[in-house]
């Protein structure tokens, strides 16, 4: 559990960070909270010559809320997400999700940017970001661009981000209405056996908008358009929820691991999605 030797860089602005990435190419990698990256380095599954620490870059911090528009800096920690009162009012699902990530020690250091950039299907934030239809602001040597969370994840640890790009912020519109992040895990500090993020808006007695996304049930986060569609226009009764769950399950491809065989995960996912929808609807 001892990493190989590396050089450590601590730039204080984004341009310097980008320049260091350029200079060392493949050998360099940014580090945020380090709570996904450092374990990989200690296991020597990742050997990185140059670590570029983003912690001293002030521009990457901060949560800004302007009406429904929410912008979260990449270096905002999970603990900061939990503690931010304005965010809890605008988009309480972030707090609900962040509280189910790891444990207080990890959350004090792990960042939202690292969580979504990492590309591990076990991370909880990516599915939430897909649920919220967030977009990721990336800055690289050729300027900046935005990529939708729903288009960002290509395979486990493979994302649309280029190696020389840095994620600077996450933008989304606060969804309003009901919400829930439901997660089944074996213990504190565990990744999901199955988890689902749901937002629902209600118009009179009917559902007017719904979004359903899932964590750790495929090699990428899964946003199920069909599941949301199944709810829109309905009163979210048991049969409607059943249809939505069936639609969501059609979009996942869980694999066996120490949490259990795929068959179990599929069954647990059904329960988790149903509970998330029911809780979101009850809050809508």
């Amino acid at each position: 559990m001892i990493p190989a030797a590396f050089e450590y860089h601590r730039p204080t602005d984004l341009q310097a960070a980008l320049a260091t990435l350029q200079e060392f190419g493949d050998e360099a990698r940014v580090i945020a909270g380090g709570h996904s990256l450092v374990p990989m380095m200690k296991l020597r599954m990742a050997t990185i010559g140059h670590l570029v620490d983003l912690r001293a870059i002030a521009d990457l911090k901060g949560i800004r809320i302007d009406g429904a528009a929410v912008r979260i800096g990449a270096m905002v920690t999970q603990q900061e997400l939990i503690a931010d009162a304005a965010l809890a009012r605008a988009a309480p699902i972030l707090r609900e999700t962040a509280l189910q990530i790891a444990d207080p020690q990890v959350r004090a250091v792990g960042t939202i940017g690292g969580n979504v950039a990492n590309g591990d299907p076990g991370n909880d934030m990516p599915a939430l970001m897909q649920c919220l239809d967030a977009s990721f602001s990336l800055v690289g040597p050729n300027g900046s661009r935005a990529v939708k969370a729903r288009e960002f994840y290509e395979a486990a640890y493979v994302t649309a981000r280029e190696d020389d790009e840095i994620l600077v912020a996450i933008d989304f519109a606060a969804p309003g209405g009901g919400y829930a992040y439901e997660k089944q895990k074996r213990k504190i500090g565990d990744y999901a056996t199955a988890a689902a993020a749901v937002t629902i808006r209600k118009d009179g007695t009917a559902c007017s908008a719904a979004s359903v996304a899932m964590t750790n049930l495929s090699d990428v986060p899964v946003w199920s358009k069909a599941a949301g569609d199944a709810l829109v226009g309905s009163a979210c009764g048991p049969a409607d929820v059943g249809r939505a769950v069936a639609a969501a399950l059609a979009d996942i491809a869980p694999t066996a691991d120490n949490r259990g065989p795929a068959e179990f995960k599929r069954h647990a996912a059904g329960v988790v999605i149903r509970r998330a929808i029911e809780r979101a609807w009850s809050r809508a």
Partner: protein
Amino acid sequence: MNEMAPISREERVEKLKGLGCSRKRVEDVRFTQGKGNYVDDLKLPGMLHGDFVRSPYAHARVKSVDKSAALALPGVVAVLTAEDLAPLNLHWMPTLAGDKQMVLADGKVLFQGQEVAFVVASDRYVAADAVDLVVVDYEELPVVTDPFKALQPDAPVLREDLQGRTSGAHGDRRHHNHIFLWEAGDKAATDEVIASADVVAEEMVYYHRTHPCPLETCGCVASMDTVNGKLTVHGTFQAPHVVRTVASLLSGIEEHKIRVISPDIGGGFGNKVGVYPGYVCSIVASIVTGRPVKWIEDRMENLTATAFARDYWMKGKIAATKDGRITGLSCHVTADHGAFDACADPSKFPAGFFHICTGSYDIPVAHVGVDGVYTNKAPGGVAYRCSFRVTEAAYFIERMIEVLAIELGMDAAELRAKNFIRKEQFPYHSALGWEYDSGDYHTAWDKALKAVGYADLRKEQAERVEAFRRGETRKLIGIGLTHFTEIVGAGPVKNCDILGMGMFDSCEIRIHPTGSAVARLGTISQGQGHATTFAQILASEIGLPADSITVEEGDTDTAPYGLGTYGSRSTPVAGAATAMAGRKIRAKAQMIAAYLLEVHDGDLEWDVDRFVVKGAPERFKTMKEIAFASYNQAIPGVEPGLEAVSYYDPPNMTYPFGAYVCVMEIDVDTGVHEIRQFYALDDCGTRINPMVIEGQVHGGLTEALAIAMGQEIAYDEIGNVKTGTLMDFFLPTAWETPHYTTDFTETPSPHHPIGAKGVGESPNVGGVPAFSNAVHDAFRPFGLRQSHMPHDHWRIWKIARDLGLHG
């Protein structure tokens, strides 16, 4: 000197903080401030660091080891392989179980994580880099991780070094992967009873492989002083004196030239009893280089390579009359010992004390047979927070009772009560050869059932089942019952030894002139709080306050010889030695007091902290005064000073017991469970410190929760460890840990000087069946008989699915 106002007898008792006092743990002052002193805190001048090259394969031939690139790395001092150790005859070492074990791979590897080469470097980081540079050429061999498959005729030969050897340390070997068959009881009589019984319940009960996983992993610092020829080894040793003796026998260094020190130890739970290759390699490296060498394993190494626990396949048959009177019990165990038989049991007991498996019940005839088997898994089989194989035994009998209750259609609490050994039967001779010293099971059981409202719980459970059947809920209730009997305090020298060393223990006391004292013991605390509780035993015996008594353990240059701490033996054995040494002090003190008071010895009586002249309460000498006198007065016929030593050979084991009830809610769709209530009644005999007992019970129950509900060392078919990190190896946090309600009865041990029996391991022994029985009990109405642990989410889900509960 200011004479204090006379204080009452009660105040004097209170001041001692002796037996029965919930004295705060003196150790915690440093532990809670992060000021403990663990082996990895030790930094000696010029110290080198060792690290292992380990096998990625579970079974392979080692064709070559190329160390040239590693040796070329600046800072690397040496790379040791079996070839380097062979001239010293240290490439293999004896195990505590009468087998031998490779220190470094000698031609082949037999489990994933096995030590292949030992790198020694100037710095921990360089050592890790050098490990990556050692090139080992392996040729993979077929792997067996299943002990039943290992015994098939065409199974691969694992231990080529034993080929052709038809007998081992414990009798005949009937197959190349067979280690021993060990038996107890009367087979013919048991078979006969079973054949003619009204009712026989038969079941395979598996207690899966798990690991003690102490928070601090294993490690040592070996330091050879080349000037005076003295070897000092600091390490995580649960038995420092035994390590000294083994080190002397292996190295040829005379025992007085070896000093073994166990500093603060961050939990042991059996993991730190054995001798590991890391210790041997560090010692050799220090002798060769003349510099101190530190070796500290990381978490993955600890979980994959140092001693595991359990892995017992227990096939049982239990016979009874129609009305539920048990008439006989048989058990055959297939014991997976891994690649080497490195169990840490007393030498004559290759299956430990598994034959305590008749439990708390009066069973007229019984038989057990245990087949030890080699597989391509890590060696070990240690007593993880239990006496030797006692948890396996308790789990077995407590599952068999439940299965028999199902067979009889009887309530499991009633079945237990019907078969308990009755109070008047003690001392009780069990069918498998033990003499239970004392017990009062019915009293404990009744108290437990009443405390939890057992009848109401059963009613609620039945209502829940009805509601479930009507589709109104997806949650079931399980009521897990256990009445366990332990056997701890090994043990009488006549039948208990480790590598020939009798399992006595010791205490040496020195009283200082001003009335404080130091007591040194042959045991070593790993968190049990010996410095607190042994001082309390002594305070009550010699009348000096516990706060004035320092307890020291773990340094073989100062502590008297002892066999160490495991198997709940410290209080039964070293605690007894402490009381006996205290009594010697008191006997001498009585002579001194008689001289000072100018009366005959026999005219004095002991009163809390002083000797008083009978019938003249105003004439007395306190222990403090006597201590001073022993150093400053010439007393005819009495040597100066006040010291004593006792080596205590226990006449018998002690038999703590307890009654546990666990109430669990189970979600049949997700397998998620919630422990609604856990009631633990422990009877550990005389209670030295109720608060320490409660702490021990909480800790043991939490480890039991871990084992029953998720913790395991799992292998895939090619011998890869699947649970080698704490992400997958379940170590509960405060979040997963339920609230426990503790309770007690007090049945003193008749043969122990203060009647204490030991408690550290009871909650793990009794806790595992209580949690597991709760899971089983929830599904009993739907036809479940047996489902193997650990009961993690998916396995509970699978029970429900297999019973058709998912519709």
